């Protein structure tokens, strides 16, 4: 009996506590306090277990291979169920656990008016357990099970507020296409099993790369499409928009920050580990192409939206496009940038969805054309929202800029090194997408938080402290990860990027030293020393220092001057001195609605926008057709390329 407190057991604990919590929440029954305590304890314990693994995995570079019930491989067959935690798994695990923790804190106050909250927490914890299980799993079939668990939980949670507009419809569409994806994963898994007679990830990684045949390649395409549906990348983005928009805000955080990450994790594992095909230019092209298309299509779709959460949902996928593009470059800098952006995406997207939830709860709507001027009523939410908006649009020194900056460097470097003009287009699309993102967040802030306050929202109050606290955690993390770029890359993303380029170690840690070279012979992956070269420099701290000194100086000068602030002069107020200028007429409420902004841009692109609007018809059969066509195309492409 080994020591149960040894850190090798922590991965399984971090999954177990969540499922245990899901169970206990039901047992707690009607007791609200007990239910909250169980939920919070479960997510905290899970997060703590994963944080405790940073030292051995991230810093010492250990790979934890854990056999459930100590059923270690016998006779070369890995029959037992395994967990394997390398730096990549842990990186995603930490992200997910953080998002789950904050979302749980938020839920306590956010869900206080809903019915059946105990089911909510059960599903919530199942979903979290499913995702953490997925990223820590070392077994392909286990991954499938976890995918199913998280899909079910996510579908049920999407439909949780089934009186809300479109919730049921979104859940149904998500279920149908999600099930096509799951079916693909299962079929792919079993086709690999037929070839290799094993389901263990490490063993498959050793066996498959040397034994490509039609069957394995079709399995690759199936698995790729399966994980794509989980990541919601093009052509599965409409589902994300529907599901994010309809789910409660705390669940949107999980769907966008966590489920998409699990899909990206699956794709990285698949392409870099299982098939080790990323050295091929054509495979890089596939990922970068899909990533760039996701980036651009989703950001333009977002510009056309007039629902706060739906807009955020499209942006979510647009940012996932950055992650996929960077991860598809197969350079150390690219992976590091992609993972950095994945982390930032979880933080700022979480923050934005929570802010949207706060607005929804206080006003009862998320329609951009109806809202306005909330910054006077909800000042804290406004500031938190702005931090998120600046982060996602890549304004220095927030975190979105740091990672996007790395993505640009990585794509352009790759373009120059490989001489492939496609990567140059990826760079340009990434840069343009960023400014379009900025545009749509200007739209949101103008039409929700600034501008004029409509009459019916005069009495709106700030949200309770619990919700602001949860948003505050994300906001602080957004700023910290933006300012200390070098610490983040050094302790989190670079170890993960090294793990991606060290497949041999992944295999050997699971199955014993020398296994990779024994099975794969000369083709065994060799550990290459990875370097993280940059073509430019960016010192956020330095910049911030400059900015602060200047801000201070200018503010001082401005205060010293004859700087009259508005006098609370009632007579002047009555005279209309403080009314806004309205062409000399008496002012009437006139808010420029969100749908009417950026006409000059939309007018030039009107054909594109109307085409895209017709294309996203909202009919589930169309989306299923896209999925199946994508599957067919992926199969064809891979059969030709591999």
């Amino acid at each position, binding site marked *: 009996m080994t020591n149960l407190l040894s850190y090798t057991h922590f991965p399984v604990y971090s999954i177990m506590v969540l499922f245990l919590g899901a169970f206990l929440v039901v047992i707690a029954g009607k007791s609200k306090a007990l239910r909250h305590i169980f939920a919070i304890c479960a997510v905290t314990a899970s997060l703590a277990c994963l944080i405790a693994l940073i030292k051995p995995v991230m810093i010492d570079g250990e790979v934890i291979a854990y056999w459930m019930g100590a059923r270690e491989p016998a006779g070369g067959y890995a029959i037992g169920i395994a967990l394997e935690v390398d730096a990549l798994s842990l990186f995603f695990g930490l992200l997910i656990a953080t998002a789950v923790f904050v979302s749980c804190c938020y839920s306590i106050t956010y869900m206080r008016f809903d019915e059946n909250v105990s089911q909510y927490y059960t599903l919530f914890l199942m979903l979290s357990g499913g995702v953490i299980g997925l990223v820590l799993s070392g077994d392909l*079939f286990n991954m499938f099970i976890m995918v199913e668990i998280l899909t079910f939980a996510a579908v049920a949670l999407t439909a949780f507020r089934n009186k809300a507009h479109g919730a049921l419809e*979104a*859940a*149904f569409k998500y279920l149908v296409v999600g099930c*096509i994806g799951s079916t693909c994963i299962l*079929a792919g898994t*079993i086709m690999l099993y*037929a070839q290799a007679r094993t389901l263990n990830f490490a063993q498959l990684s050793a066996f498959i790369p040397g034994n490509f045949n039609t069957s394995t390649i079709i399995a690759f395409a199936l698995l790729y499409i399966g994980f794509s549906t989980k990541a919601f990348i093009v052509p599965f983005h409409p589902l994300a928009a529907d599901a994010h928009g309809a789910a409660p805000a705390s669940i949107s955080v999980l769907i966008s920050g966590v489920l998409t990450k699990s899909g990206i994790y699956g794709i990285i594992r698949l392409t870099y580990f299982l098939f080790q095909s990323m050295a091929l230019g054509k495979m890089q092209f596939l990922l970068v192409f899909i990533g760039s298309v996701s980036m651009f299509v989703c950001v333009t779709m977002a510009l056309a939206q007039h629902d706060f959460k739906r807009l955020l949902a499209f942006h979510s996928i647009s940012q996932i496009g950055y992650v996929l593009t960077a991860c598809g470059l197969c350079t150390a800098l690219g992976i590091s940038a992609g993972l950095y952006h994945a982390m930032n995406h979880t933080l700022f997207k979480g923050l934005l969805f929570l802010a949207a939830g706060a607005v929804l709860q206080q006003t009862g709507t998320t329609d951009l054309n109806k809202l306005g001027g909330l910054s006077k009523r909800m000042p804290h939410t406004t500031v938190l929202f702005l931090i998120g908006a600046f982060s996602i649009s890549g304004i220095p020194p927030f975190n979105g800029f740091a990672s996007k900056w790395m993505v640009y460097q990585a794509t352009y470097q790759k373009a120059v090194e490989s001489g492939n003009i496609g990567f140059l287009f990826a760079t340009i699309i990434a840069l343009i997408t960023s400014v379009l993102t900025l545009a749509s967040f200007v739209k949101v802030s103008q039409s929700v938080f600034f501008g004029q306050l409509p009459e019916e929202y005069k009495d709106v109050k700030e949200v309770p402290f619990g919700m602001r606290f949860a948003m505050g955690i994300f906001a602080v993390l957004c700023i910290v990860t933006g300012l200390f770029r070098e610490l983040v890359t050094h302790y989190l993303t670079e170890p993960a990027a090294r793990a991606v380029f060290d497949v041999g170690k992944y295999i050997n840690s699971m199955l014993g030293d020398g296994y990779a070279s024994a099975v794969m012979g000369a083709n065994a992956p060799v550990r290459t020393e990875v370097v993280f070269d940059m073509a430019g420099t960016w010192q956020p701290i330095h910049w911030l220092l400059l900015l602060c000194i200047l801000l201070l100086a200018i503010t001082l000068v401005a205060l010293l001057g004859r700087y009259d602030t508005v006098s609370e002069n009632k007579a002047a107020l009555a005279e209309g001195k403080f009314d806004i200028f309205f062409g000399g007429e008496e002012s009437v409420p006139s808010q420029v609605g969100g749908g009417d902004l950026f006409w000059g841009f939309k007018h030039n692109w009107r054909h594109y926008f109307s085409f895209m609007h017709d294309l996203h*018809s909202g009919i589930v059969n169309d989306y299923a057709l896209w999925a*199946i066509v994508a599957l067919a195309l992926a199969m064809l492409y891979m059969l030709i390329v591999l």
Partner: protein
Amino acid sequence: MILFNYIASFFLIVLGFYCIVTKYNAVKTVIGLSIADYGVNLLIISIGFNPGGTAPIYTWGELNPSSFFVDPIPQALTLTSIVIGACTTAMSLALVIKLKESYGTLDTREIRRLNG
């Protein structure tokens, strides 16, 4: 014989997908999902089948290198998969009932309030 299984499973999967794409009735969509799922289950079982093999039930003493039996792992996987398939069907039918209540129709062409 086993080839026939593969063809049948492929046929079932394609039939299921065809049903999902072309049928505009939400219940038929669910049926399509189930058919595709059964196709995959058949595939799993066929992969584990060894012609002439016995049932994979042995005690430690009986097991020797010459034992010839069907692969037990796919059978375990199929069981799991069938359970998951049943859950999918149950869940989607529950959603379909709710959809019918709130939209008054099962036609997927009319269930499209979220679009564009």
